[in-house]
């Protein structure tokens, strides 16, 4: 499976990207992240839509997203094809279908590490890690918020254009990653 080979040799993605700057409401962003971080464990079904520039139609998938402290995130895709992605501490393991499990240390793949930060750090309430790669700005209020993350680190700027999270209180409703190459990935979490 090609993507796993790429994972194994790692860290080879070369893309160009620019970052937009945004004003932010620091207090609200902090509140939102703090609020999210209070949840010790969550399990939610998800639907995902990937719009990839090279493809004529979007790719859809669904499954269950699980998280618990500390630093454990599991994305079980059930349809259209089974896949299990586990991020535990500094190690990513991925198993597609019934194939063998591939392990990749995050230290070996900055691109993968960024993806992990983008997904896991908000759930952990880890403001420090998030702000290494992004500046945050928030709209709305705690009852219904929109959190925009704009890349600031060179690595993030190369890969990501913008990340938008939407949610209520300590619940994330959707996560939208707009990549620097134009691909868009939208993860909707069912309540």
């Amino acid at each position, binding site marked *: 499976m090609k993507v796993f080979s790429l994972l194994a040799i*790692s860290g080879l*993605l070369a893309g160009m990207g620019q970052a937009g700057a945004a004003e932010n409401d620091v207090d609200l962003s902090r509140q939102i992240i703090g609020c999210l971080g209070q949840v010790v464990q969550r399990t939610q079904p998800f639907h995902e839509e990937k719009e990839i520039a090279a493809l004529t139609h979007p790719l859809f998938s669904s499954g269950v997203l699980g998280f618990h402290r500390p630093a454990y995130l599991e994305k079980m895709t059930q349809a259209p*094809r089974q896949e299990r992605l586990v991020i535990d501490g*500094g190690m990513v393991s*991925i198993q597609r279908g019934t194939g063998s499990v591939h392990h990749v240390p995050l*230290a070996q793949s900055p691109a993968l590490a960024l993806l992990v930060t983008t997904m896991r750090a908000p759930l952990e309430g880890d403001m420090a890690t998030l702000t290494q790669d992004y500046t945050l700005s928030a709209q709305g209020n705690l009852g219904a918020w929109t959190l925009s993350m704009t890349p600031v680190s060179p690595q993030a700027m190369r*890969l990501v254009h913008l990340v938008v999270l939407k949610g209520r209180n300590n619940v994330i409703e959707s996560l939208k990653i707009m990549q620097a190459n134009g691909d868009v990935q939208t993860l909707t979490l069912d309540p």
Partner: protein
Amino acid sequence: MKPRRKPWVLAITLAVSALFAALVFVSIPLRLDMAGFLPRGHDDGTRFLLREVQGGVAGTVIMLGLEGAPEPELARLSLGLHAALAKDPQFVSVLNGVFATDQAEALRALLFKHRYQLASDDGVRNLGAQALEQAFANVLDGLASAAGPVFSDTLLRDPTNAFVQTVRALEPDVHVRLLHGVWFAPDRTRALLLLRTKAPGMDLVRQAQVEQTISAAFTALHPGTAKLLISGPSVFAVSSAAGMRRDVDMMALCSFVLVVSILYWRFRSLWVLTAIGVPFLLSLSIAMLVVRLVFGFVHGIAFGFGMTMLGVALDYPVLLIGHRDHGEGPQATLHRIGHSLRLGVTTAELGLTGMVFCGLPGLAQLGTFAAVGLVVAAIVTLHVMPRLVVAADLAPYISGPSAPLALAEGWRCYRGLLVIPVMVCAIALWWSPPIIDTRLAALSPLPEKTLRMDEALRKDLGVPDSSLMIAVSGGTTQAVLEREEALVPLWGQLRQQGRLAGVQDAARFLPSVRMQHKRVEQLPPPAVLQAAIAQAREELPFRPTAFDAFVSDVAAARQMPPLLPQDLQGTPVGAAVAPLLFERGGQWFGLVFPESVQDHQSVEQALVGQPDVLVMDMHKEVDSLSAYHTGRTLRWMAVGCMLAFAVLVFGLRNAGRILRVIGAVGAVQITVLGVFALLGQHLTLIHLIALQFVLGVSLDYALFFARPQLDAEERARTMRTLLTCNAMTVLTFGLLAACHTPLLREIGITVAFGVALAMIYGFLLAGQRPHIGPPNSP
């Protein structure tokens, strides 16, 4: 009525000897590397290979193991060492499983650009519609994966995985498991790192610095309970040189102190020490000079052994002074002991034939050093000493018969009892005859534990042990690379047959220009590729422009100039190629290291008839050398023993005495061999040589004890003097047993034990039985 002492002659002689010795020591440096002790190969080809391998790439490999702590902690230490050492200019590469992203950025771009020239699997260049359809389906699956978006650009640019294939081929073949992101041994909790140094393996000064750097980096990480294991040829060279230095220094100092104390205790005279100093200094320095002239250098081991030989060489002056009575003239003492002394020297020399003529440079040096030292000591004793001794009127402090000596002589009545230990040993020998171990590994100056650890680390890290070496030669780099490529099908065959796991050579990192041309010729022209892509994606949801970058990459590859060695300069791949591909005297050479060779012979046979290929099987080389040398040693030992026997017969001319002497000497040999058999000790070349040396010394003792017509005074003198000699020999050789260098240790143990027995057996068996002795006894 003592004559007036004239010790100034003695003092001047000593001063001159000391000056001479000092000159010799200053002008001849000691060599401490192991190369002088290893076989040098039997022809130009093998000599070249041994030299390249010992001094070349294999010598720069250092393997590290971390153990003694939980896995996460070991992983932390591995990452810490990697971080500290990777930026140190002393290291060419530091590998621990972590792919160094930042340092290899430029390399990655280069490899990505040249992927269609470098990837060895032709499948990646099969860009027909059918193959592409499968490849595109895989791309789609990859894009659908959770990690897909991260790699989408690369997936689309390289649908057939040419880049992955290229990078894979460059990674070392390691048999490790990846745990917490770093390499661990497959079967135990041990983190592993593989380093290569910039300094050549034989540059001991710089290699010692490298080791210090590694240890310091390790300590700086606060390792707690974790231990650091370091192994590799250079590490061995440094540690055995240091060990040898310590051994030589210790031997020099301790032998000196021991010998001086014993002699002072025996004679209670500084003048005696001065007198004995003359043959000591002269024999040591002349032996060194002769070894330097014969071999071109003096090895530390030979010198250390030479110092030990002091204990034997000094027997002669000690015998002279020990047998002298106050007031005796120069020839009086010699008249009594001269004959036995000459016989003793001759037999001791004959006891060294095995060592001198074994044909191994290291051992031959030891033998030559010892033989020259003995001869010089004997000549000085016979021709220079008498006048000096008389001039200074030197004689033993205590002389004449004494009750304990008489009592000891009384034990000779029970010498029949010695039959018991000798019989026990003979039976032991009969039950388990000595096994002769012809492995040359027994000669290795390295402890076996160290060798085993090295073997384990090599196996895990896939480092070839250079036991089978192959070199390919040609007029240019390209010719060498093409020769190496021509061998690839052969390696494939051997791998299929399970003879070896693979090979490491330059062509694996950098294909020849011809090969690169051949590869890009397989790529279709843009129009053909476009058509194939259009057909391949018909059933798949890719846009028409999805693979534009792929198409332009393939088109560029078709026009791209091939990658040359100079393009890789300064990159990690360049560093990997350099030691495998080099020029010597206008000729280019490529080294090929087979990995995990199961069957040396079939690999060697497979290469028979290949042009411009040199093969050397280190094991076979060493085994045949070792068998050859052991055989040669045994032959020369036999010659030495026969000559010694002839000398005895000729010198003693008395059946009874010959029988007593031979009986004493034979009993010593049987007992030593029997004890080895009881201990299950295999006999190596070293033991054989040491045994022959014991033979020489025990003959010497037996001859002195067996001298006829001895009055009680003379017997007491002989007893005391031989005890002194024996104590010196046993103690100095006993000191060798404390050595770090196994070769010296084995010699030390065997000789000390054998010589102690020689004294006991010589005294009891070779001497005449009091009162009930043969009719010619007084």
